């Protein structure tokens, strides 16, 4: 039995009321699906005096295609459950890699509860942090992210390297999504690629007084192939041990057409997802060209440096980042 710490619960019914509650109650935390924060509270990683539940904030649950600043976008409310995101016809048609990623999060039960906004703001995870308080005490008093002041992953390290473990985040970055925040000063829009920081204690630029209200994903303007690759030991429940999102924009609707733009993003390294750089040699090559797969996989293997912050040995995970990238590209090519 894991008891929650004592707290009060507020049940506002709209975004304005949530923002007002956040402003008036410093230290209050937001709870949507509860599948991330409640286990963390049961493990005593935080003891907020108040939780602000989004259970009654129905305005966060729309999914709609609309014109925004001269381009077509799909706005996905942050309160949509991951099940809904993975099954929504619009998301499946326009952003298949996002539907895949949302449908691979944890288990069906957790996807029925957990929200897209919660997955974007998922707290960073580490094998030395996400344990019971009793377990952490056995380490001699926790680590940088819990009660202590040492790091067990990087001995002597002063910067927390807990892993950004969201399945949807690498995909949202690869799709060029924007994150819309509501705060006391009004609305703020942050590109997903600039939302994360390399600090496991505070890995997003979201202020404590801000609420993630929606994700704005641009509709593709060219033919596209996209994929999300995830490796876990079990086929369900687990957080990713390897996580790669790929997006290839093509000149025409064929895997033999030249690639005009590509984005490859890896998760579960440190606190910040890694956008793979130096892929310019791939532009102009057909997606089906084996050289393309070799260049992309080599860049992923070179630039992804996993740490022992989640289960499995880092050198093995590093190899698997390459392997899963190669398989994902091969599947895209095979699908035509």
């Amino acid at each position: 039995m894991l008891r929650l710490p004592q707290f009060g619960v507020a049940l506002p019914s709209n975004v304005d009321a949530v923002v007002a509650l956040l402003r008036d109650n410093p230290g209050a935390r937001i709870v949507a699906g509860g599948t991330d924060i409640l286990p963390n509270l049961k493990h005593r990683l935080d003891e907020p005096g108040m939780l602000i539940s989004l259970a009654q904030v129905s305005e966060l649950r729309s999914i709609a295609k609309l014109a925004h600043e001269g381009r077509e976008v799909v706005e996905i409310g942050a309160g949509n459950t991951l099940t809904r995101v993975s099954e929504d016809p619009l998301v499946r048609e326009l952003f298949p890699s996002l539907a895949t990623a949302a449908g691979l999060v944890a288990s069906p039960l957790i996807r029925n509860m957990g929200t897209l906004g919660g997955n974007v703001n998922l707290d960073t995870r580490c094998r030395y942090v996400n344990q019971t308080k009793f377990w952490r005490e056995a380490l001699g008093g926790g680590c940088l992210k819990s009660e202590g002041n040492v790091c067990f992953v990087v001995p002597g390290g002063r910067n927390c390297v807990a892993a950004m473990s969201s399945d949807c985040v690498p995909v949202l970055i690869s799709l060029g999504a924007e994150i819309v925040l509501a705060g006391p000063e009004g609305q703020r829009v942050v590109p997903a690629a600039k939302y994360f920081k390399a600090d496991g204690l505070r890995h997003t630029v979201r202020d404590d007084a801000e609420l993630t209200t929606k994700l704005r994903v641009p509709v593709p303007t060219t033919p596209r192939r996209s994929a999300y690759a995830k490796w876990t030991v079990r086929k369900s429940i687990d957080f990713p041990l390897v996580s790669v999102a790929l997006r290839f924009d093509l000149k025409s609707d064929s895997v033999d057409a030249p690639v005009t733009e590509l984005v490859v993003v890896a998760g579960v390294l440190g606190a910040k997802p890694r956008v793979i750089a130096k892929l310019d040699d791939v532009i102009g090559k057909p997606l089906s060209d084996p050289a393309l797969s070799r260049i992309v996989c080599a860049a992923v293997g070179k630039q992804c440096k996993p740490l022992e912050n989640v289960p499995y040995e880092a050198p093995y995970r590093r190899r698997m980042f390459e392997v899963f990238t190669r398989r994902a590209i091969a599947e895209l090519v095979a699908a035509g």
Partner: protein
Amino acid sequence: MAEALLSLRINGESVHAAAPAHWTLLEVLRYRLDLIGSKQGCDKGDCGACTVQVDGEPVLACLTLACAAAGREVRTVEGLGWSPEASNGCHPLQDAFDRWDAAQCGFCTPGILMSAEALLRKVGRVVTRDEVREALAGNLCRCTGYTKIIDAVVDASEMLAAPRDET
């Protein structure tokens, strides 16, 4: 510890209970309402033993704040026996679990029944073994190896599609 009055809809009935604000739905079900069919296993979302349905969707009662379930229709394993499909106080799933020996220690069974019932309702036809595997992917069973659980769920979906006389 201040307690708040909760008004919940559970298995089709309005119930009221006083409980601390930080209690989960599972704690209120078990320790205030004596509905101990939903089990407290890992208590952090890994095992699925606490699965109940909220507005028809299977969710984890151990990670649902009780006050956030107010105004929504909660269904527990205790409510399965008086669903419209039930006969002699027994849902076809429960009957199939009995006939297939799909429960050994039985601790995971209430959660699995609630996940499986939601699947049968959502699909509305005879289910495939892969659909059952996917739907039960959040419910751990340490005894059976799942084979007989899957057998039972498929059998129950066949019974619901075309009831047969098994006297």
